[in-house]
C-alpha cells in the first residue's frame, strides 16, 4: 500500500468515522444521563434516511431542506419514543429498559418494512464530484461530511459546557436525585438530551446518505451497533470520547478494507472493542466508577 492510498483511505475513514461519531454521541449522551443503551438510536437514523430519500425523490425538495426536515422528524421521533416508552420505566430495573429499547428498535425496523417495503431505495448522491490534491482524490461528500460533523460536535460541546441546559444535563448525569433537589426538571432535561441525540442522528443519516446513497429498513441496526462500539471504545458517557471512538472505528475499518480484508471488517472492529474492554473497561476517556457495597 503506497502513501497516497493510505491518505485516501484515512480520509474515507474520517468520513465514515464522523457519521459513527455523530451517532455515538447520541448513544453516549443517553447512556450518560439514564444509563440506557438506546438500541433504537440506530433505527432513528434509518427513519431520517427515509425522510431524506422521500423528500428528494418524491417531493423534489432541495437537499438542504430535506436534511432539515429529517433532523426535525428525528428529533420529534426521539422525544416521542422517550415519552411513550422510556419515561414510564424510569424506576424499573435497567434490564426492562434495555428490553424496551430493543422492542422499539424492532418496532421501527418492522414498521419501516411495512410502510416503505423491504427493498433498498437508491437515490442519486446529494453531493457530487470532488477534487484532487496531488495524487489523492478527495470527494466533496467527504469534505462536507467531515466539516458538518466537526461543526455539530463543536456546537454540542459548547451547548453542554456553556449553557444552562448543558449544566442541567451534566448535573442529572452525575446524580439524578441531587439534581432534582436543586430544582432541575428531570423530565425536561432528559427529553432535551433525547432531542439533541436524535437531532445529531438526523444529521448523521443525511451524512450517511452522502457516503452510501441508499436506505433500507435494516440499515440502522449495524450502523447503530458500530456507533455504539465507538461510544464504548471512547468511554461511554463522555462526549469527546464518543468523537474519538467514532473516528477510530472509521479509520480502522478503512484500513482493514485497504488491506483487502473487508469481509473481516466487523470482526476486527469487535475484536478491538474486546481488547479495549478487557484492559480498560471504561474506554479511552471513561471515568472509573468505584463500586460500593
Amino acid at each position: 500500500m503506497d502513501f497516497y492510498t493510505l491518505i485516501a483511505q484515512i480520509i474515507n475513514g474520517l468520513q465514515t468515522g464522523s457519521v459513527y461519531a455523530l451517532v455515538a454521541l447520541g448513544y453516549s449522551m443517553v447512556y450518560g444521563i439514564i444509563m440506557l443503551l438506546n438500541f433504537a438510536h440506530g433505527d432513528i437514523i434509518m427513519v431520517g434516511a427515509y425522510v431524506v430519500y422521500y423528500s428528494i425523490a418524491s417531493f423534489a425538495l432541495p437537499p438542504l431542506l430535506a436534511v432539515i426536515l429529517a433532523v426535525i422528524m428525528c428529533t420529534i421521533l426521539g422525544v416521542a419514543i422517550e415519552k411513550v416508552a422510556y419515561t414510564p420505566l424510569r424506576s424499573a430495573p435497567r434490564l426492562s429498559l434495555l428490553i424496551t429499547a430493543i422492542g422499539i428498535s424492532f418496532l421501527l425496523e418492522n414498521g419501516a418494512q411495512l410502510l416503505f417495503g423491504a427493498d433498498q431505495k437508491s437515490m442519486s448522491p446529494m453531493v457530487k464530484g470532488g477534487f484532487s490534491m496531488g495524487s489523492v482524490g478527495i470527494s466533496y461528500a467527504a469534505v462536507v461530511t467531515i466539516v458538518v460533523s466537526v461543526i455539530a460536535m463543536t456546537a454540542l460541546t459548547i451547548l453542554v459546557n456553556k449553557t444552562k441546559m448543558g449544566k442541567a444535563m451534566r448535573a442529572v448525569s452525575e446524580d439524578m436525585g441531587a439534581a432534582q433537589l436543586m430544582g432541575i426538571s428531570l423530565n425536561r432535561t432528559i427529553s432535551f438530551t433525547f432531542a439533541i441525540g436524535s437531532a445529531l442522528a438526523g444529521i448523521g443519516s443525511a451524512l450517511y446518505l452522502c457516503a452510501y446513497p441508499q436506505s433500507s429498513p435494516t440499515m440502522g441496526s449495524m450502523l447503530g451497533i458500530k456507533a455504539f462500539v465507538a461510544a464504548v471504545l471512547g468511554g461511554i458517557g463522555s462526549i469527546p470520547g464518543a468523537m474519538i471512538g467514532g473516528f477510530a472505528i472509521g479509520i480502522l475499518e478503512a484500513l482493514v478494507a485497504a488491506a483487502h480484508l473487508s469481509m473481516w471488517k466487523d470482526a476486527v472492529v469487535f475484536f478491538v472493542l474486546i481488547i479495549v474492554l478487557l484492559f480498560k473497561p471504561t474506554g479511552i476517556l471513561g471515568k472509573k466508577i468505584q463500586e460500593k457495597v
Partner: protein
Amino acid sequence: MKKKFTIPTPASYVLNAAILFVIWLAISMMISSGVITNYWRGILITIGINIVLATSLNLACGYLGQLPLGHAGFMAVGAYAGAIFMKATPAAALIRSGNTLAVLPLFVVAVIISALVAGIFGILIGIPALRLKGDYLAIITLGFGEIIRVVLTNIDSVLGFKFTYGAAGLARIPKFTSFNICYFMVILCIFIIHTFMKSRHGRAVLSIRENEIAAESVGINTTFYKTSAFVLSAMLAGVAGCLYAGYIGSLYPSTFKFMKSIEILVMVVLGGMGSMFGSVLAAIVLTALPELLRAFSDYRMVVYSLALVLMMIFRPEGLMGDYDFSLKRIIQKIVNGIINRRKGNE
C-alpha cells in the same frame, strides 16, 4: 401440631416423568394418526429447539443475572460442529435407508461434540467477559457473537479448503432431528438446569445474582460459579444448535445474527427472568403465535415488537415473574386444602 401432607422428592420425580410420558404418548399418537400434520410437527421441533435456547439463556440471564447478547454465537458453534461431524459420518445413507436406530449413537456423539465445542467457546469467551459487569458484559458477548459469525463466513478462505462453506451455507446435513429426539433433548436440558439450580452450586449462582460482593464475602468462588453457569448455558445452546442443524438441513452464518440472540432474550424476558416455566411457555407461545398469525404475516413482526414494549411498560417482570410451575407443590396444596377442610368440619 398440624400434620402436613408432603410428597417425597423421588416420588415427585416419578410423577413428573409419568406426566411427561403421557404428553409424549399423546403427541406421538396425534402425529401417527395425522391430527398433527408434518407442517405442525416441524413447528413442534422448532418449539423444542427454542425451549432449549430460552431455558439455557435463562440460566445465564435469569439465574446468574448477567445479560449475554451472544447466545446465537454459541448456537452457531454447536450447530456447525454437530453438522460437520454428521456430514462426515454415513448418517445420511442410514436415514435414507430408514435405519433410524443406527443413527442414534451418531446423534449422541454429535450432541456431545456440539456441547463440548460450544462449552470450549463458552470458557474462552466467559473468562474474559465475566470480568466485566452489566452493560459491558452485554456488549462484549455481543462482540464475540458477531466475531463467531464473521469467522464462520470467512474461515474457508483462510483454511484453504471447504470447512463451513461460508456464506453459501453448509448444505445437505443429514436430517437426524426427529420429534422424539427433540422431545427427549428438551426434557434432558430442562432436567440438567433444574438439578443444577436445586443443588448447592445452583444456590451459589443465585447468591451471586442477588449480591456478588456479599456472595464472595461468605466464601463463594464467584469467578468459578459465574464461569460454570455461563459455560453450561453455552453448552446447552450448542445442543440446541445441533438439534437445529439436524432439523433444518442447511446452515447459513446469517441465521445467527445479533437479532437471533435478541429473539432468544425476548423469550426469556417475556416469560419472566429466573422462571424456567416462563421461558418454556414464552418459547412455545412466541414460536407458535407467528405461525398462527401467518395470515397477517405483514403485521406480525410489528405486533410482536409492540407486544414486547407494552409488556415491559405494564408488566416488566414478565408473564410469570419468578413463579415456577411445580406439580408437587400444586398437589400438596390441594391435598392439604382438603385435609384442613375435613379438620374444620370435625
